């Protein structure tokens, strides 16, 4: 490392010799030309902007051709095993090629939790930059959601969910059995817009409870989460029984006692609703003195008059 130079982004650069270039071409011969270009640029400049293209290009090479279109959608929550059909041995092949191309070493232990394409991209970027590794995406089936959420059926509007440092995603299928559909509307069941916003609010609650909020070691007390405000809520489409809502939220500001998120709901590829800002209050566990016996449940989110007004 004595003769290595350091570029502005702080990554030590080894010289990139014609031999290295030949090896790189050979290693990436089954990847797209763009993958090689990105890798060569990265090796010459250390510019981490090339990393997503390199990592996606390498993953693509190991995905069976009939599944590759999925990868083109470039969704970060695309799951490596379930959606792309990559098994643990193929994952090792990917790792070995990534190690070879990026000149780095990855431990088995570090790989265990990588579930999505986004996890892999974030992981590689952190490794290359020498940053601490983020917690990987956590997947929660409905049982896990029910066990952590203060909100419970019949007022829980989240099915399976995934949470990582950058936000949370969930699906909710409108079963048609929801009690309020009997009256909303007469002989014409339509999911109330207030419920759509409620569902996004619930996903934000899940993020606060399962995500990485605040300093290490602190956990959010579920009894302290309440709705405060929302801004810029627009509904684009009516949602009916049988349809599956794809909910996603991303934190915009997280500073106790307020957490602000942006959220959107899609049905298939169609936008159903967006909320520019949903703000919740919350507190960390150690900041709560004694459990207040009369504490209002967090489900009060929906009964907040401000939220109820959304559907007016």
């Amino acid at each position: 490392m004595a003769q290595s130079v350091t570029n502005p982004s702080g990554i030590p650069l080894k010289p990139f010799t014609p031999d290295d270039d030949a090896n790189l071409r050979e290693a990436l011969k089954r990847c797209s030309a763009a993958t090689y270009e990105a890798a060569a640029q990265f090796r010459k400049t250390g510019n981490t902007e090339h990393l997503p293209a390199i990592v996606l290009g390498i993953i693509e090479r190991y995905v069976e051709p009939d599944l590759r279109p999925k990868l083109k959608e470039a969704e970060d929550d695309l799951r490596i095993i379930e959606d792309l059909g990559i098994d643990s041995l193929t994952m090792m092949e990917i790792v070995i090629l990534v190690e070879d191309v990026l000149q780095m070493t990855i431990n088995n232990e570090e790989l265990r939790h990588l579930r999505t394409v986004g996890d892999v991209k974030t992981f590689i970027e952190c490794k290359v930059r020498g940053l601490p590794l983020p917690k990987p995406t956590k997947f929660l089936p409905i049982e896990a959601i029910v066990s952590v959420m203060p909100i419970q059926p019949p007022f829980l509007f989240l099915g399976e969910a995934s949470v990582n440092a950058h936000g949370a995603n969930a699906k909710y299928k409108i079963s048609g059995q929801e009690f309020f559909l009997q009256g909303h509307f007469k002989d014409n069941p339509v999911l109330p817009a207030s419920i759509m916003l409620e569902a996004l609010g619930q996903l934000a609650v899940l993020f606060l409870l399962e995500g990485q909020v605040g300093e290490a070691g602190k956990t959010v007390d579920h009894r302290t989460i309440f709705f405060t405000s929302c801004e810029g809520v627009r509904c684009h489409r009516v949602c009916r029984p049988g349809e599956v809502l794809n909910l996603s939220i991303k934190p915009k500001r997280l500073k106790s006692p307020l957490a602000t998120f942006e959220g959107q709901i899609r049905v298939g590829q169609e936008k159903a609703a967006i909320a520019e800002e949903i703000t919740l209050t919350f507190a960390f566990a150690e900041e709560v003195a004694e459990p207040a016996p009369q504490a209002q449940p967090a489900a009060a989110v929906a009964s907040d008059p401000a939220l109820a007004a959304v559907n007016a």
Partner: protein
Amino acid sequence: MRKVYITGVGFITSIGNSAVAVSESLRELRHGIVQFPPFQKAEVPVKVAAPIRDFQTDTTDAEDWIFPARYNIRRETLRGMAPHGIYAYCAMQQAVEDAKLTEADWSNPHTGLYAASAGSPFLLGHHLERMRKMGVMRCAPLGVVAAISGTVNFNLVSQFKIKGASTGFSSACASSAHALGFAYDEIKLGRQKRMFVVGAEDGNVESILPFAGMRALSLQHDPSIASRPFDVARDGFVGTGGAAVLVLEGEEEVARRRAKVYGEVAGWGQASDGYNVAISHPDGAGLRMAIENALNYTDVTVESVDYVNAHATSTPIGDLSEARALKSIFQNSPTRPAISSTKALTGHGLSLAGAMEAGFCALAMKEGFMPGSAHISKIDPACEGLNIIRATLPHQPNVILSNSSGFGGANVCLVFKSV
């Protein structure tokens, strides 16, 4: 006692990549031996081999391999394979189609697979070299299963979702004959209803040339006379690779499925020389005992044997000891069975040989011919008294013996009967 039948065959061999092509080559005595391009170097005195056509497997990267379009093999299937893995996969496809089996027929606890190959010295060398150069953590994840002995059973059992008995056999050139014998036993004993028997070898530089060290390979430059078992001027074997697959089924399954039958596996015998690690017993003592065991077990008389598919590989010592074993068995027999070595055409397939030649016997029984022993211009005087046929005979053999001998003096004799 339950009878066991051959109901399907598949071939990727130097003399053809289908049963039809193989049968034609056997009848017309068309050999598959060429001046093998990788051997054409000043430092390699061996010049000939019997390669596989229509496949290209000479790189260490399975994704570079070329194979006939009728076989659709995905990357995830290919990545754990040696060159002979792809041959075996294709021969297996042929065999299940030939036997008209559906996946439900073969993927169940009553169907097993016994296989034999020597592994892939080619890939083993490559992966060990990579380990030394790049470090242990950069070993290809599937390098081990692609390279070691057993690779052919690992791959086929998982790819074809075999649920019954499975293992590999390792007695060098007797391996796949052992596999067939023990597969027969599984059905006979009622443990399995159906068995696949697989023999396969890479047949490339790394699997053939090491035999030059023990002076076992022919140094002939002329492919048309290089492999000439029983000829007085024979000077060693010609290497080959490929794969052969046989489907064995018990009589109940044959009746239930109304399966087409090539012939019956009547039984088998084995015995060992207990003599030398690499040289066969000069009098063929072990092979003689294996033949006697096979005849006793099957209740077949010496006189009723019509055809012997000899192991004879075209080495001076090996052919002689087999000739002596055969003479001691058949010397007093008035009928003198026809004897030939099909290795004159195919070259010697090592672990593949036993299954490949059993497949040839299946074709001979079903189609009614006995393949001749090619390339003999002057027969070895030591073979005097044996009926070594130099041309193919257009008769159906009723009872066939097929011999195989391997390192350490392992000898197997398989017995087939026409139906």
